[in-house]
């Protein structure tokens, strides 16, 4: 699992949200990747700090919002 501190939509120069991807551990091939945008705080950037896995194989992501102008 890899993550970025902020996602970037180059067409819209939009730094909100964050990116997350799941890769094959053996070769790094992408299994899936998503850009996450928060609709409750649309003007803030989310910094994912930690990711871990639950016993049921769900993932837990823990991070913090910053105003987008800090980035």
């Amino acid at each position, binding site marked *: 699992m890899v993550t970025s501190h902020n996602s970037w939509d180059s067409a819209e120069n939009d730094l909100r949200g964050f990116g997350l991807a799941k890769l094959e551990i053996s070769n790094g091939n*992408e299994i899936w990747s*998503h850009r996450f945008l928060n*609709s409750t705080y649309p003007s803030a950037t989310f910094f994912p700090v930690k990711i871990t896995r639950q016993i049921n194989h*769900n993932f837990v992501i823990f*991070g913090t919002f910053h105003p987008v102008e800090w980035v």
Partner: protein
Amino acid sequence: MVIDSEGHPIYSRIFTSSFKIYLTDRGSIEQGSLSTDSNGNIYIGGIIEDNVNDNDSGFIIKLDSALNLVWSKTISIENFRATRFRLAVLQNDNLFFIVSTYGHFPVVSGTLNKDSLLIESKGLNYFSPNIQAHPDGGLFVIERGNEDTSHEVVLVKTLPDGSTSFCPDFTACVNIREISFNIDSTMWEISPTIPFEDFTIQIETGEIELEDYCSPQPYPTPQFSLPDTVCQGTCLRPTELNNQLANHAEWQIVGRIGYCIADTSSIGASTHGDLVHRS
């Protein structure tokens, strides 16, 4: 936030507090800590301003697998400001934590049970470590050297209960208090990302010299001597070096700012000082 194995959001909560919470240091050291137990409960930790004690403390929030609050606590070290807080769930589902004070006191470690009851606490001979739970039990404790030993990395594998049998430990005073957070739900939308691209990296190998970290050294003690003769009215301040290089660290006796350990203008002089690590 909890997402399923395909990356779709299931639960999301936002925690706010009237106290300032530190999870990142704006491009510097990550302060947050996250771990899960065998029942899917989630523990998150970080640093929070403690206006009650005019100090910074560690905090722990325990959530169930659906992000409902179970309990939340602050972990503070009396008279010392917490600068880094790390936690990890042990194999027996107890919670191990480490509070760093940036060398002003030996790093304080402790173990809580699932109901936040403190099982034990002690000071350990580290500076500002990270911890990582190991699947076979025990923890890896990793830290880069301080300003004087920046070329060194300390790597420790603990026993399953988080302890070590080979390093000295110190008495530590840990305070655990309730703290409340405001909790709200928050919504996420997902969209595709830009495509990934391959790139090449080159790894160079080098020699690593290993040596034992802990060795029998005298413990630092708060014993220090006062001059034989002082003038009346003199305020003696606890600044003498003592126990220099005990436990591989340089120590100095200091007291609170403006606080006299012995005021010769009064009869009932007392001796009191704190040990701090010279960083």
